[in-house]
């Protein structure tokens, strides 16, 4: 891949996904794009780039999709899920006792493991039947979301993060793969969504999980997303980022929930009433 093509790719990802492609990723780009080139009938990635510059939407989307990082696992970063089980869920169940409605959004769901981990916790919590619980999971990658809906995982993927008891309870063996139970699949509604697009479809949510996506974001894109998150999150809602992610320089609308659990935030007092925002 030549330097001009790589620069074009970096710019495309920045425009389409707010994604920062670091300059040392030429190898990664070449290996990710080779299958896309083949699928579209190009002999080499150079030909793919020549076509890409004419900007056909579906090719640009396929290239963006292929470059996304879908690294995830069940119960990845256990403390964050323990906090959901032990603090976030009980506090919201009590705060929403009147409306009996809870809305949870996994904003960078990748191949679905995080959303299904939350679904398992919700299932184990034995919440009364008259509650309406929306578990919404989205990702920019249509490929990842298709896998999430399918709910089929390799031995390697289920081995990571799942204890044997949980595996046998919620999965059925399917050849050399494992398929998550229909019960859990029906708990989650998946959709393809770019965090830079309009959030109009979403409505207010009580919990946002957006873990480790901003690690690859351009600073401005991260700032814009956090602003949008503050708009859709309920005043007493929770936001979970990855354990190594911070708000520094990106948003003042959130404060850490509990110093012992990294990455979990609540709205800052001043962000609860948008009028008070200095902006």
């Amino acid at each position, binding site marked *: 891949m030549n330097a001009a093509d790589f620069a074009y790719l970096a710019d495309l990802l920045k425009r389409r996904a707010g994604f920062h492609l670091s300059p040392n990723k030429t190898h990664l780009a070449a290996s990710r794009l080779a299958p896309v080139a083949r699928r579209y009938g190009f002999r080499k990635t150079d030909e793919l780039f020549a076509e890409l510059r004419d900007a056909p939407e579906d090719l640009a989307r396929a290239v963006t999709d292929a470059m996304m990082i879908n690294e995830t696992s069940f119960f990845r970063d256990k403390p964050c899920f323990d906090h959901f089980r032990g603090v976030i869920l009980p506090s919201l169940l009590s705060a929403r006792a009147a409306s009996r409605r809870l809305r949870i959004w996994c904003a960078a769901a990748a191949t679905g493991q995080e959303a299904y981990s939350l679904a398992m916790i919700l299932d184990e919590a034995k919440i009364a039947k008259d509650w309406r619980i929306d578990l919404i999971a989205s990702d920019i990658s249509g490929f990842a979301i298709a896998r999430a809906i399918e709910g089929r995982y390799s031995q390697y993927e289920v*081995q*990571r*993060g799942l*204890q*044997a008891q949980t595996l046998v309870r919620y999965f059925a063996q399917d050849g050399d793969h494992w398929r998550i139970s229909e019960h859990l699949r029906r708990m989650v509604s998946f959709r393809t969504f770019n965090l830079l697009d309009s959030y109009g479809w979403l409505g207010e949510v009580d919990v946002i999980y957006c873990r480790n996506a901003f690690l690859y974001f351009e600073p401005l894109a991260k700032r814009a997303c956090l602003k949008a998150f503050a708009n859709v999150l309920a005043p007493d809602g929770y936001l979970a980022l990855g354990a190594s992610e911070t708000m520094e320089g990106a948003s003042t609308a959130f404060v850490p929930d509990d110093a012992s659990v990294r990455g979990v935030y609540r709205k800052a007092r001043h962000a609860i009433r948008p009028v008070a925002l200095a902006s």
Partner: protein
Amino acid sequence: MKHCLVVDESRVIRKVVCHLLEQMKFYAEEAAESASALETCRVQMPDVVLINLGNAGNMELVRAIRRNASAKRPVIIGTMTEHDVGHIREALSAGADDYILKPLDGDSLKEKFAQTGLM
């Protein structure tokens, strides 16, 4: 320092796994078969026992350790070369807490140990 017993017929696997455990600051002991494993448990019950469940006879070892009246209940993790739901269920009902796929490496051991509360 936590104490781990590694039960596997393969000398090479025992050496490799004990080495990984020592790097994780565990005190590692090894046994090639059930009788010596039970003897180790009788002298001092480890915190965790890794048992090769690829060997069908070792399922009985899991039951025998659970029958032991020692006050300490060790974490028992079966090691397997194949992911088979029947096999996993059998191991759980014999008394294993979890399983881990071979080949074992430092990352998968650490992850499993963290899940079972050992680290």
